[in-house]
């Protein structure tokens, strides 16, 4: 695998997290933001411990991260299908399971092509996609802010801080990829992790605050607050610009899935070196199968536990003999 930069790794992971935030279901509040930030802080600490220890993953750990990549890929596809009602996808609309499979198949095709080019091109493309995405989201949300009610930000939470930390922790589908791919980062793990978590905290905070300001008043009847906030962005009286959001949504979906597929394919190569061909195809087929099993469920607690396990297992399962590669 070729080496990538800390910005490229951060972009790849950030896209996954932002896509998960787009698909975030249920109501949001200021405590959601605290929960997400607390989750990020905990994950950063665990990641820094892993970075300080360094080393290469053991085979058993690689198996765990392979399963984790498939699970996260499955939740991604599942989230895509769940939100397809809110974000209009012509191939899926009103076509039931076949529409869902067609959408997944199209994404799978692009993922397969992307993973066939290697991590380096995808990482380079992710930086451009993330920059363009953040720019477009900025426009989308800046125009949404014009219609925002900032008093909504103080809407009280009903479900408790612990629940929000769990939700925040669940928004981390890229953690497995982070552990696996961090060894390929040129500048070292620590810098890459700090870059990623800092960017994630900043983007999440801006996004959640804007969403609260825009959709806080109708949060009770909102299924997907981020999507609704984007759809409410109306900079002009009769002009909608949320087409930008549709494009970003699809682009982020592809990169998120591609990250899991590449991680899975990389791990298969390590676990089964004799398995030379069809690695990416196998991962994507199993991932879509997992998505069908998950079938519309959010599985917040399981995702949060899996994310925590991904970070705890990482420092415990590195080979001592391996070269220390921390930054």
């Amino acid at each position, binding site marked *: 695998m070729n080496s990538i930069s800390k910005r490229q790794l951060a972009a790849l992971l950030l896209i996954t997290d932002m896509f998960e935030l787009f698909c975030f279901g249920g109501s949001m509040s200021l405590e959601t933001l605290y929960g997400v930030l607390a989750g990020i802080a905990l994950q950063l600490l665990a990641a820094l411990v892993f970075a300080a220890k360094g080393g290469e993953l053991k085979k058993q750990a690689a198996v765990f991260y392979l399963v984790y990549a498939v699970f996260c890929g499955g939740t991604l596809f599942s989230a895509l299908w769940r939100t397809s009602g809110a974000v209009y996808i012509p191939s899926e609309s009103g076509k039931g399971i076949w529409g869902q499979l067609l959408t997944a198949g199209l*994404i799978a095709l692009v993922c397969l092509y992307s993973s066939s080019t290697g991590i380096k091109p995808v990482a380079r493309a992710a930086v451009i996609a993330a920059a363009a995405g953040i720019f477009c989201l900025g426009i989308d949300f800046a125009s949404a802010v014009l219609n925002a009610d900032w008093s909504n930000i103080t809407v009280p939470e009903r479900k408790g801080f612990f629940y929000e930390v769990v939700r925040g922790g669940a928004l981390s589908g890229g953690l497995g990829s982070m552990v696996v791919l961090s060894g390929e980062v040129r500048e070292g793990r620590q810098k890459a992790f700090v870059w990623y978590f800092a960017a994630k905290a900043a983007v999440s905070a801006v996004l959640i605050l804007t969403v609260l300001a825009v959709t806080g008043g109708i949060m009770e009847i909102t299924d997907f607050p981020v999507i609704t906030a984007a759809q409410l962005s109306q900079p002009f009286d009769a002009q909608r610009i949320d087409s930008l959001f549709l494009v970003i949504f699809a682009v982020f979906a592809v990169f998120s899935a591609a990250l899991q597929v590449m991680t899975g394919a990389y791990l298969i190569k390590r676990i089964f070196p004799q398995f030379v061909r069809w690695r990416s195809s196998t991962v994507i087929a199993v991932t879509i199968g997992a998505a069908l099993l998950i079938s519309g469920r959010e599985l917040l607690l399981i995702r949060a536990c899996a994310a925590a396990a991904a970070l705890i297992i990482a420092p415990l399962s590195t080979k001592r003999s391996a070269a220390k590669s921390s930054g």
Partner: protein
Amino acid sequence: MEKGGLLPSLDDSIKEIRRISGGSSDLLINRFVTGGIHCALLCCEGMVSTSVITELIFEPITDIPQQKDSHGLFHYINEQLLLSTDRPAVRDYDTLFRLINSGFAVLIAEGISFGLAFGVQGYSSRGVQEPSGEGNVMGAHEGFTETIRTNMSQIRRRLKSPELVMELFAKGKKSHTDLCLCYMKDRVPKSLMERIRRSLDDVELEAILTTGHLRPFVENGSFELFDSTGTTERPDVLCSKLIEGRAALLVDGVPYAIVIPRLFCESFQTLDDYAYKPYYAVFIRWLKYAAFLAAVLLPSFYVAIVMYHPELLNSTLFMLLVEAEKKAPLSIVTESLFVLLMYEIIREAGVRLPKPVGGAVSIISGLIIGDAAVNSGLVSTPLLTMTALSVLGGLVVPELNPQVTVLRFVFIIAGGVFGLFGISLLACAVLVNICATEDYGFPYTAPLSPFKRKGMGDTALRIGIREMQSRSFTVEEYHE
């Protein structure tokens, strides 16, 4: 071609030359006696200058005093006569024919198994003219010609530094085309030049008639939509590339030079950018970026939004489009593909036909067919407007026209079948493909990704010339 050494007998040698050439009419063999030795001067008709050959070779050679033998004659010519500056020795028939066919005159003599060649080229060629493709307002109006030595002199005139190296060699089993590898030896790493030379060693073509014959050998072998090597027909542009640490390849008979490596952002840069004030150059540059995006995406966005996402339009625009499209008999995708295909056919006809007829074709198609198509209701006015805007946008970046043309069609189909979702998926695939484009370790998308802050000064912006002077940029900074 015959590799054997020259025969010492003049008659046998001439017989052998006639046999190899198959009695070709343009091979001229002038036999004469000078210094008491029987000689023959061989040249190719139309490739040498008659006045030069008379003045520099025949006149001095006929004045040579009596010589003991052929070796004495050749020694006298080499030591006492200047004749011409370019005087390679000929030891085999392969070299002999290569030189004759390159405009050299070759002298062979009785009793000696090598010949002397004199550079007396005088074939007719197109003079230096304004480049036809790379328009420039404030820069030089000289372009490359088909003659490689003229092109070399044009570069040398602009870069008088001894660091500029020009390596001349021939490729093509049948064509023996002269190629010239140019680079600044203090700017290009030796390893890169070695890799380029190794790539060129793989060329085993019979003939090299265009830059397109060589580019695949110096480009990455994988499937790339965009070219990781560029071409230019401007010596001033090539000089700027050489100074930035790139290598160039000149091909005899082609008025274009290949530039290695090429970056995506360079397609949006012109020499005029550096002649204007930075604020205007930045404006023009961003205009080109927007034009490129519009050229690729505008028709597909129109198709996707009208077909699947009409809620994204404001009511006035929506009503206008409904009114226009309800009269059109074809579906929007078919209609837009039809309009674009029509345009491509007209463009191709305009390019291939003789210039006066080509112009007439453009007028007839633009005014008559376009007007008739709209008036008959076959094509809607908004769609035609979008297509025209997109086509115009493509013309702003002519270097990317092949890619823009094909991508425009593919994006329309993706938008027509899957809406904005399809466009986004295709955009991802194209983006990954562009990012995978790489030549000798130089990423095509640099300095955008991998991000190089220094490089953005001449990509997103155009910093002042004073700042550029202190920057001393070479493309090596982008190497990964």
